[in-house]
């Protein structure tokens, strides 16, 4: 069953929702798209196939977030409320939504649930936008996702001509799309065809079977030095990654606030210890950590690859490093003979 939303009615439906929800929608900012709160004057940018520059993880794990306010003299503090009012995120790409389901396994565990993450997840309805024309940097189908993957979404849209075709996936999604026209069988068939074509367009970017075992095997090889050679250590691959979640906790002494900020394993100080020892002293170890985390450690934790193939790290790397090429190299890398002679 699919609903039809005329494109010209988009503003109407968004402003209707905005009566009861905070509504986030990709908007044009300078030369890129970013999720921002909807306003009738917003310049909506749903057509950028490259997704928003910042992944929508930022709406759940903000780049910088106050956790508590303190009085250092008295040693007293107050938690900052983790309450989140109901909101709708409209137009999230399937790779980014899948990333949220992966991050749930980090932030919402039985032992320690992160109240900030949880409050935002529970009060958010996510409407996805499938990718009819996936760009060259995307490789979601290689990593068990797809341009119309449903994981993490409450509904998914397929753009066709002057309409969006909507598949409702959860009860949360049902509530907000209740008064729309139904698509005919013929239209549905047409949309399914469009979706299948999008899957077909995406060639496998690298071989994933046996990849973890291979990476584990070459952990101590020169492979890492070779692939990290041109890396600048800027960390953009991790900051813009929808599944990277590392954070730092620091006290902002001028504001009297304890803040958590996005952090990155690509920085030297990330793992530097008080003694001066650093388990990851060079970019070689740090690049290794980034790739091993996504393509080995995630598999050990939940048997899923910790990458959703969004391609941001490929698109935004200032020296053109491409994780797909790195992994292809790994697959065929022949470890040097350690005890030669």
């Amino acid at each position: 069953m699919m609903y039809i939303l005329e494109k010209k009615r988009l503003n109407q439906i968004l402003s209707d929702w905005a009566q009861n929800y905070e509504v986030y929608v990709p908007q044009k900012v300078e030369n890129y798209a970013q999720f921002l709160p909807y306003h009738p004057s917003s310049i909506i940018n749903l057509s950028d196939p490259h997704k928003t520059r910042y992944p929508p993880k930022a709406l759940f794990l903000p780049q910088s977030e106050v956790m508590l306010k303190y009085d250092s003299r008295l040693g007293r503090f107050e938690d900052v409320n983790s309450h989140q009012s109901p909101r709708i995120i409209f137009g999230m790409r399937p790779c980014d939504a899948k990333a949220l389901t992966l991050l749930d396994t980090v932030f919402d565990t039985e032992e320690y649930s992160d109240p900030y993450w949880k409050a935002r997840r529970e009060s958010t309805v996510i409407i996805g936008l499938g990718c009819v024309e996936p760009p060259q940097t995307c490789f979601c189908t290689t990593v068990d996702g797809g341009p119309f993957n449903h994981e993490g979404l409450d509904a998914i849209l397929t753009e066709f001509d002057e309409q969006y075709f909507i598949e409702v996936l959860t009860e949360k999604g049902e509530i907000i799309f209740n008064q729309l026209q139904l698509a005919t069988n013929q239209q549905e068939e047409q949309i399914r065809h469009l979706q299948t074509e999008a899957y077909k367009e995406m060639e496998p970017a690298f071989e994933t079977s046996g990849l973890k075992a291979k990476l584990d095997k070459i952990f101590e090889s020169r492979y890492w030095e070779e692939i990290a050679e041109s890396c600048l250590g800027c960390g953009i691959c991790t900051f813009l990654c929808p599944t990277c979640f590392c954070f730092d906790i620091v006290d902002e002494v001028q504001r009297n606030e304890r803040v958590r900020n996005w952090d990155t394993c690509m920085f030297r100080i990330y793992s530097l210890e008080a003694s001066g020892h650093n388990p990851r002293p060079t970019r070689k170890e740090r690049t290794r950590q980034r790739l091993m985390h996504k393509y080995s450690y995630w598999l050990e934790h939940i048997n899923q690859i910790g990458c959703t193939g969004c391609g941001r790290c490929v698109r935004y790397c200032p020296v053109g490093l491409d994780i797909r090429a790195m992994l292809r190299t790994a697959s065929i890398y022949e470890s040097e003979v350690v005890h030669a002679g």
Partner: protein
Amino acid sequence: MQDNGHNPYSPMPMRIVRAYYESNDYSLKTLELVFDNQKDRETFFEKFNPGQFCQLSIFGKGEAPFGVASAAWEGDFVRFTIQKMGSFTQYAHKLKAGDPIGMRGPLGNGFPLMDWKGKTLVIIGGGCAFSTLYALTKHVHHPQNRQDFDQLVVIYGARTSGLCMYKHDIQSWYQRDDMELHQAIDVPEDDWSHHVGYVPDVVREVAPSPQNAVAVVCGPPIMTKFTLPVLVDLGFAPETIFTSLEKRMKCGIGKCGRCNIGSKYICKDGPVFSLAELNALPADI
């Protein structure tokens, strides 16, 4: 003061009840903390196990992880011995009785005491890393716990006698008939009647028997590195050798990402690991 609810990032309000130097060079200071809230005290001691650590929290300075150096039966306080290293610990050294401080914990797995029941414990420590082993020894000393274990052997080394921690208490251990104590310093000193030498050599000299025994090693990385092979030589199996690891940490609950070795987080899956477990992990230490 408000209820911390279920926010695992929210520290418990604590107060320093005793603060004193442990070493004659003023590099080691012990802080004993009591709970402002009764409920926090109860939850803490319900969960606490020697070998665990806490995040101490000084507002304006941040947080840093420290191993707990006291056993639950010692009283309603939690003890930490802190080496002066960076800005947090410099400030921690200025704290005095009555000062407020925050604490999150207990964190981590602690020593697997249930698995060690009925066994001989060989406890080997060097430097200020002995603090969690002191907690372990104190735990075992309680009559109710002592019967759970066979023999107790403690080997504790420090660079100089001035750096030996918990002096008065440890001195009294020589009078106990339920344990064997070997203290060592690196270089000879007048009035020192115990071992002289590095911990690995002392372990080789003392040669504890691996029969029905587990060995626990905590110390600076260089000491641990050279002690583990000695234990293997003495016949300890990798499954019976344990150590406690440290890494830079922030959250302490397996979320902030930085303290992993392979797929294991030191804060959540450790800090205590057996040598067998460590051997299975990549060399990322």
